[in-house]
């Protein structure tokens, strides 16, 4: 351990460094979404009546369904990381596979919602509320899409036998990102669908 070259490659140190890297990235993500949350707060305080009327046009049942879908997908990530920590690669792949599937369900519901809104003539340009709605859920949707790609990549790594109980950093780090995507929706859902 006194040899600095081995210390550099200490897997625990590498794991901790990767974790800090992800948390730093998530910090920038908080501020990215934070700008939109700030815009939401400012306009909501300026035009409370418009927000009250417009938010009722969203389907809170579909919003709630998607909340449950994302929460379940997060649980699957937790179970998946737990599985790979115990060296159970097949179980890990099944859990992350379920997460990717649920992410797909989330986007399908989102697609149905967007289609219904367009059908009723509600577009991003319609008013400030719908501008914010489409911006915030759209940016979040992009994160869901990227998450699906990221999690798929980690499943491929596992299929190639690259993950084990000793090395599961990609699973842990992509999991952290996915929980963050879930966390953003936990705020988006009440702010847009429930209290407008």
């Amino acid at each position, binding site marked *: 351990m006194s040899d600095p070259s081995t210390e550099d490659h200490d897997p625990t140190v590498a794991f901790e460094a990767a974790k800090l890297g992800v948390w730093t990235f998530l910090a920038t993500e908080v501020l990215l979404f*934070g*700008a939109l949350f700030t815009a939401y707060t400012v306009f909501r305080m300026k035009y409370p009546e418009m927000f009250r009327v417009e938010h009722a046009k969203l389907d809170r049942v579909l919003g709630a369904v998607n909340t449950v879908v994302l929460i379940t997908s997060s649980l699957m990530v937790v179970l998946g990381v737990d599985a790979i920590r115990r060296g159970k690669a097949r179980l890990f792949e099944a859990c992350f596979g379920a997460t990717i599937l649920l992410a797909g369900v989330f986007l399908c519901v989102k697609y149905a919602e967007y289609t219904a809104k367009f059908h009723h003539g509600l577009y991003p340009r319609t008013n400030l509320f719908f501008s914010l709605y489409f911006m915030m859920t759209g940016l979040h949707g992009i994160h869901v899409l990227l998450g699906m790609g990221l999690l798929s990549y980690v499943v491929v790594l596992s299929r190639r036998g690259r993950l084990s109980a000793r090395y599961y950093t990609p699973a842990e780090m992509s999991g952290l990102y996915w929980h963050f995507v879930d966390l953003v929706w936990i705020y988006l859902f009440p702010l847009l669908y*429930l209290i407008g």
Partner: protein
Amino acid sequence: MAHGTATSRWIPLAVFAALLLLTVVTVLVSFVDLGLWNVVVALLIASAKASLVALFFMHLKGESPLVWGFALVPIVFLALILIGTLTDTMLR
């Protein structure tokens, strides 16, 4: 040891159940007109859910003060941005 793993395996499921319960509660409360309190209750429930996800799913609970710092500093900055912007737009 075996008992320890068995208990820790229960935690995600308990957190999951709590998250589902809070989702149902926040939807039900949204149908009741509480005036301004609707916003307060919705944000409190959302923050409770977010805390559960961060503490247990992202296992912030067992993390070092360094990781806690990385997690909390952006929230402080977000608060500064919000307060700064609102004092401008509200008092203009």
